[in-house]
């Protein structure tokens, strides 16, 4: 396939010759036929995948309203009556409310911290020339390709020695540290695109550097902060590996941890319906957030890989 490697169009104005040389002009009628057959086929596959994505989720929702017996006897039947008691049992007895609260605290704190610290570092790295600037930038970026597990073993002892093991604020600090690589990467690119003139004007008017940052640059960077904020929200809300290692106190568990523990212990107790209710409870907030902020989520998630 040599031809695909360098189809750089030489006569740039026409923009056409990419395929001209390679493809003999096919007769249009034949093409049309191919189109319809392919259409039915490819539509079928698209529908099938949509079905495969939605079915497990609907199945989980359905199961969360059933009693234990019918979960086992007929996994796909509709619930005979809506067992809302599964939900209330999961919320109170299975401690889902505590896990929820812990997650909200950890993610809330980390998200604010990540955005504040990340934008400070990114702003300095994007707009100031100083020795070591490049080095620090690449030090941050390098973190995106680390296998986190490698650092987790000594990290456990670092956190332990600081007395931060099994604490909410310890988890927050670690979440922030591990969210910084992508956040700095994304926001540095973003701050570079903002016009310098406004900041310079403010500076001439006597505003300090930090005042310029907080009152002028940060508000201008709002779209970027929203994108990277949603990205971090999803990542931190869904985090599983860090809390599994650093947070073994049953009272401090976050949602993902709590659910996995619940699955283990329900294996003995046999409260599967309660467990499904918990699963759905943990799924709904992020699905709802995604549907509402769909455009920003996609922007935030794709921006990194596209740049």
């Amino acid at each position: 396939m040599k031809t695909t490697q360098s189809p750089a169009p030489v006569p740039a104005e026409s923009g056409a010759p990419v395929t001209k040389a390679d493809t003999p002009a096919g007769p249009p009628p034949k093409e049309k036929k191919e189109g319809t057959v392919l259409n039915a086929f490819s539509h079928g596959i698209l529908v099938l995948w949509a079905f495969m994505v939605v079915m497990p989720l609907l199945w989980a929702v359905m199961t969360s309203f059933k009693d234990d017996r019918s979960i086992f006897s007929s996994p796909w039947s509709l619930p005979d009556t809506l067992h809302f008691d599964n939900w209330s049992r999961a919320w109170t007895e299975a401690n889902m409310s505590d896990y929820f609260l812990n997650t909200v605290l950890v993610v809330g704190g980390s998200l604010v911290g990540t955005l504040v610290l990340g934008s400070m570092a990114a702003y300095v790295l994007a707009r100031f020339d100083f020795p070591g600037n490049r080095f620090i930038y690449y030090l941050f970026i390098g973190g995106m390709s680390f296998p986190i597990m490698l650092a987790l073993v000594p990290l456990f002892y670092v956190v332990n020695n600081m007395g931060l093991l099994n604490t909410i604020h310890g988890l927050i600090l670690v979440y922030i540290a591990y969210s910084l690589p992508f956040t700095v990467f994304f926001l540095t690119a973003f701050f570079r695109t903002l016009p310098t003139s406004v900041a310079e004007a403010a500076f001439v008017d006597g505003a300090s550097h930090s005042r310029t940052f907080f009152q002028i640059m940060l508000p201008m960077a709002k779209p970027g902060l929203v994108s990277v904020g949603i990205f971090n929200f999803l990542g931190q809300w869904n985090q599983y590996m860090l809390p599994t290692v650093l947070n073994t106190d049953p009272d401090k568990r976050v949602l993902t941890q709590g659910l996995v523990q619940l699955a283990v212990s329900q294996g003995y107790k046999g409260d599967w319906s309660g467990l499904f209710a918990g699963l759905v409870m943990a799924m709904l907030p992020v699905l709802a957030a995604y549907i509402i902020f769909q455009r920003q989520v996609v922007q935030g998630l794709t921006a990194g890989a596209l740049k």
Partner: protein
Amino acid sequence: MQHGKYRFIVGFLALPLGLYALFVVWPFIQSIYYSFTDWTGLSPEFKMVGFDNYSRMLDDEIFWKSLQHSLLFALLLPVVTISLALFFAFMINVGGRKRKNGPVVSGVRGSSFYKIVYFFPQVLSIAIVALLFAFAYNPDSGAINSILRGIGLDGVQPLWLGDPDLALWAVMAVLVWSTVGFFVVLFSAGMASIPAEMYEAALLDGAGRATTFFRITLPLLWDTVQSGWVYMGILALGAESFAVVQIMTTGPGGPDYSTTVMVLYVYQKAFRDGQAAYATTIGVALLVVTLAFAAVVMRLGRRERLEY
């Protein structure tokens, strides 16, 4: 802008850089150092043992198994996921072009619906996805086997996660399920920035869909495909495979270590078996594999950069 510049720079960088150095960079450097010791992780004492851990690793059968599985994850998962995603993204963005009075290049009907739905699994925690599928795979009461029964395949009732030959594939399928949507959206964004004139020209020349895809879309999208490939490989070697294998397979690590991956093996050695130094050694191997993987993909994928 010189006044107080350095004080400002230091003030703004100190906290983020300090946190990052303390919790990410420092443990990372330490772990390489620990791999040359006999540290258990349980007591503070340890001594240097040179390359003992490394030679032990080379004789460790389970290590080789986990390496094999991790490589399978890193090589096969991106191929399947990215191929599927390219196909979907092409259909969604370029595939439906035979409509009257519409734009020359457009997606199939309902393309924005597909884009939203396909992305659902991506926003869910991998831990939740793993739990959900652990139930779905349950041989007696799970959704999958009962579908098979429902369509008359009573004889086909695999044990899925309990079968050493199937467990690894069942786990990998879950990762495909959960990541395809991200790449559909990623590639859609890339395809949207390919100029419509290119497609128009190809259409005038009578190119069919397959030709259009292989001669225009794929070459122009190559950079995105490549970075997606590296990203997926790193995920498959690291956090994602940890969660699915740890949560879904019995043991965990599957019957007869049939699903153990490197990242899980690191975790078990460090936090279950009290062999922190040996764990970091496997971690170093994991780092080498990750870097080698990224280097190979970048090299194989190198092409002339296309400007458009």
